C-alpha cells in the first residue's frame, strides 16, 4: 500500500469542539430542525403555533448566549466536517453577525406571536410557520457563516422561504407583487453568484478570513474593483438601494401584514449586512474608491424613500418607502467607512429591524380597526384605543429619528462621522430625510388617529396576542433610546472588528497572528 508523504491528519481538527462553540451552528441548525418538524405537522393547525413560538424563543436564547460568548471571547469559528479552514466550510460568529442574528430572532419571535391573530387556519395549513422557521434558518445562516459561497446558499434558502410567505393566500394582488419580488431578487442573487465565481477564480478560496488575508497581500495585481462593484450592485439590489429599489414598493404591501412586517425587518438588512461584510472587511480599499458612488446612492435612496412616503395614500405602501429611506442612511454610514459611520450603519440596521417590523404591525392593526389602509378614509383611531395610538406615535417618532428613541443615536453617529470628514451635504441629506419622514408619518397620525372617523368603524378589537409583540418592540426602541450606552459600546467593538479583522482571521486560523 502506497503511503502519501503528506500527513493528512494535519488537515483535520483533532481536538474535540468546545461545548460553547456548538452555539455557532446552532441557530440555523435549530431552525431547520424545527422547520422540518413543522412541515411534518403541516395539517395540525393548532400545533403549528405551539411549536413555532417556543422554537423561536429558544432561537432568541441561543443567539443571546452566543452574543455573550462572542463579546467575552472574541469571534468564534467552527468548521464543518472537521476539516481545517480554508478547506472546510467555516461558520464564524463575530459581534456584527451575532448582533444582527439576535435582532433578527427577536423580530421573528414578535412576528410569530403577532401572526396568531393575523394568519388564519388556511394560512397555517399552507405553511406560514414552517416557512418562517426556514426563513430564519436562512437569515441566521447568512449572519453567522464565514464562507462566501455558503452565504450565497443561505441567501437562496431565505429567498425561497420568502417566496412561500409572499404568495401565502394567493390573491391577485399578491401574485402581482410576488412576480416583481421574485424576478428581481433572483437576478440579484445571480449577480452575487457571478461575483463569487470570479472571486474564486481570483483567490482560489471561498473562506472570508482567507480572502481578507489574500486580498490585503496581493491587492496591486488583482481586479478587486470589479468584484467590489459586482458585490455592491448585487447586495444593493437585495437591500433596495436606489436605483435598484423598485421591487420593494411593488411587493411589500401585498402579502399578509405580518409577512410584510417580517420582510421589512429581516430581508433588506441581510443585504446591508452582506455589504458591510464584503466592502468593509474584504475590500476596504475598493470601498474607499467607491465611497462617492455609495454616498450618492445612499442620498438618492434616502430622498426617494422619504419623498415616496409623502406621496402614498396606502399606509402599507408608505411604510415600504420608509424602509427604503432607512436603507439610505445605512448606505451613507457604509460610504463613510470610519468606525463611527460603520457603527452608525450597524446601529441603524438593528433599530430599523425592530421599528419597521413594529410599524407594519401598527399598519395591520390600524387596518383591522378601521377596515381600510387608505389615508383618505382612515380616521378616529385615537378614540378607539389610546394605548395603540400612543405606541404608534412613539414608533413614528422613532423611525423619523427623533430623540429619545432608538432612531436618534445612529443618525447622530452617521452625521457626526460625516461632519468629521467635512461632508456637509451628507449631514444635510440625513437631516432633510428625517424632516420629510417626520412630515409623512406626522400626517399619518393627524389623518388616521386624530381626524374624527368619517364613517362608522367596524366593530373590531385588538387581541392581546397582536398587541403584546407591538408593546415589546416599542419597549425595545424606547429602552435603547434612553439607555444606549451598553449597545453603543458593543457596536463600536463590532465596527472595529469589521474594519480591522485580525481577531476574525485569528479565530479562523489560530496561530497565524
Amino acid at each position, binding site marked *: 500500500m*502506497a503511503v*502519501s508523504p503528506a500527513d493528512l491528519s494535519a488537515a483535520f481538527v483533532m481536538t474535540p469542539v468546545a461545548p460553547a462553540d456548538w452555539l455557532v451552528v446552532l441557530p440555523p441548525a435549530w431552525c431547520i430542525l424545527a422547520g422540518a418538524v413543522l412541515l411534518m405537522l403541516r395539517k395540525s393547525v393548532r400545533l403549528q403555533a405551539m411549536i413555532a413560538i417556543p422554537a423561536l424563543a429558544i432561537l432568541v436564547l441561543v443567539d443571546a448566549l452566543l452574543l455573550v460568548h462572542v463579546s467575552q471571547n472574541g469571534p468564534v469559528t467552527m468548521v464543518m466536517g472537521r476539516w481545517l479552514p480554508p478547506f472546510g466550510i467555516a461558520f464564524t460568529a463575530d459581534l456584527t453577525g451575532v448582533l444582527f442574528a439576535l435582532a433578527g430572532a427577536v423580530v421573528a419571535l414578535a412576528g410569530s406571536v403577532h401572526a396568531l391573530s393575523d394568519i388564519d387556519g388556511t394560512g397555517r395549513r399552507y405553511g406560514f410557520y414552517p416557512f418562517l422557521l426556514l426563513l430564519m434558518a436562512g437569515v441566521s445562516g447568512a449572519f453567522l457563516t464565514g464562507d462566501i459561497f455558503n452565504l450565497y446558499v443561505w441567501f437562496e434558502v431565505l429567498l425561497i422561504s420568502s417566496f412561500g410567505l409572499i404568495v401565502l393566500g394567493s390573491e391577485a394582488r399578491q401574485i*402581482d407583487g410576488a*412576480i416583481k419580488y421574485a*424576478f428581481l431578487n433572483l437576478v440579484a442573487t445571480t449577480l452575487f*453568484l457571478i461575483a463569487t*465565481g470570479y472571486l474564486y*477564480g481570483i483567490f482560489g478560496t471561498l473562506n472570508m478570513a482567507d480572502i481578507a488575508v489574500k486580498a490585503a497581500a496581493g491587492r496591486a495585481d488583482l481586479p478587486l474593483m470589479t468584484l467590489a462593484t459586482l458585490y455592491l450592485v448585487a447586495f444593493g439590489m437585495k437591500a433596495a438601494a436606489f436605483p435598484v429599489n423598485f421591487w420593494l414598493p411593488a411587493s411589500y404591501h401585498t402579502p399578509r401584514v405580518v409577512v410584510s412586517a417580517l420582510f421589512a425587518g429581516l430581508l433588506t438588512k441581510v443585504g446591508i449586512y452582506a455589504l458591510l461584510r464584503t466592502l468593509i472587511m474584504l475590500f476596504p480599499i475598493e470601498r474607499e474608491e467607491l465611497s462617492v458612488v455609495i454616498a450618492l446612492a445612499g442620498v438618492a435612496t434616502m430622498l426617494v424613500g422619504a419623498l415616496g412616503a409623502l406621496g402614498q395614500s396606502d399606509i402599507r405602501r408608505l411604510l415600504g418607502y420608509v424602509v427604503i429611506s432607512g436603507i439610505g442612511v445605512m448606505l451613507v454610514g457604509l460610504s463613510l467607512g470610519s468606525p463611527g459611520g460603520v457603527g452608525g450603519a450597524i446601529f441603524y440596521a438593528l433599530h430599523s429591524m425592530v421599528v419597521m417590523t413594529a410599524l407594519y404591525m401598527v399598519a395591520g392593526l390600524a387596518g383591522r380597526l378601521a377596515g381600510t389602509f387608505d389615508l383618505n378614509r382612515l380616521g378616529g383611531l385615537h378614540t378607539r384605543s389610546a394605548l395603540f395610538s400612543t405606541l404608534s406615535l412613539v414608533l413614528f417618532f422613532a423611525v423619523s429619528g427623533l430623540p429619545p428613541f432608538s432612531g436618534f443615536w445612529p443618525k447622530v453617529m452617521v452625521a457626526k462621522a460625516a461632519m468629521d470628514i467635512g461632508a456637509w451635504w451628507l449631514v444635510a441629506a440625513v437631516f432633510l430625510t428625517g424632516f420629510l419622514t417626520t412630515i409623512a408619518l406626522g400626517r399619518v397620525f393627524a389623518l388616521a388617529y386624530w381626524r374624527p372617523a368619517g364613517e362608522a368603524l367596524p366593530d373590531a378589537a385588538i387581541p392581546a396576542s397582536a398587541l403584546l409583540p407591538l408593546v415589546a418592540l416599542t419597549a425595545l426602541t424606547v429602552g435603547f433610546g434612553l439607555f444606549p450606552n451598553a449597545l453603543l459600546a458593543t457596536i463600536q467593538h463590532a465596527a472595529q472588528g469589521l474594519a480591522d479583522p485580525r481577531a476574525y482571521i485569528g479565530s479562523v486560523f489560530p496561530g497565524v497572528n
Partner: protein
Amino acid sequence: MELLFVILIGLFFAAAVYLMLSKFLVRVLLGVVLLGNAVNLSLFTNGRILRDVPPIIPAGHDVPATLTANPLPQALILTAIVISFSFFAFLLVLVYRAYQDLGTDNANEMRVAEPENDPLPPAGY
C-alpha cells in the same frame, strides 16, 4: 478551449439580458434560465477546462503530476444548478398562475398591486 467558452458565455449573457428586457414574463423567465446557465458556464471555465485528466494525486506526491481541472467549481455549479432549477420551477408556476389570475403575461399591464391612478393622500381635513 477557454476562449471558445468565454465567447459562448458572452453570447449567453447577451441573450439573457435581451430576453430579460422584454415585458412578457415568459421571455423574462427564459432570460433568467439563460442567465443562470451563463453563470454556471463561467464558474465552469474558472476551474480550467481540460479533457481526460482526472484530478487524482498519484501515490507519493503532494500535488497532481499534470495540470488538471479544479473539481471545486464543478461542485459549486452542482449546487447552483439545483438552486436555479428549483427557482425556475417556482417561477414557472408563479407566471402561469399570474396568467390565470391576472389574465396577462405582460408586466406593463400588471397593475393590481400598484394601481395606475392611485389617489394622493388628502392635503388636510
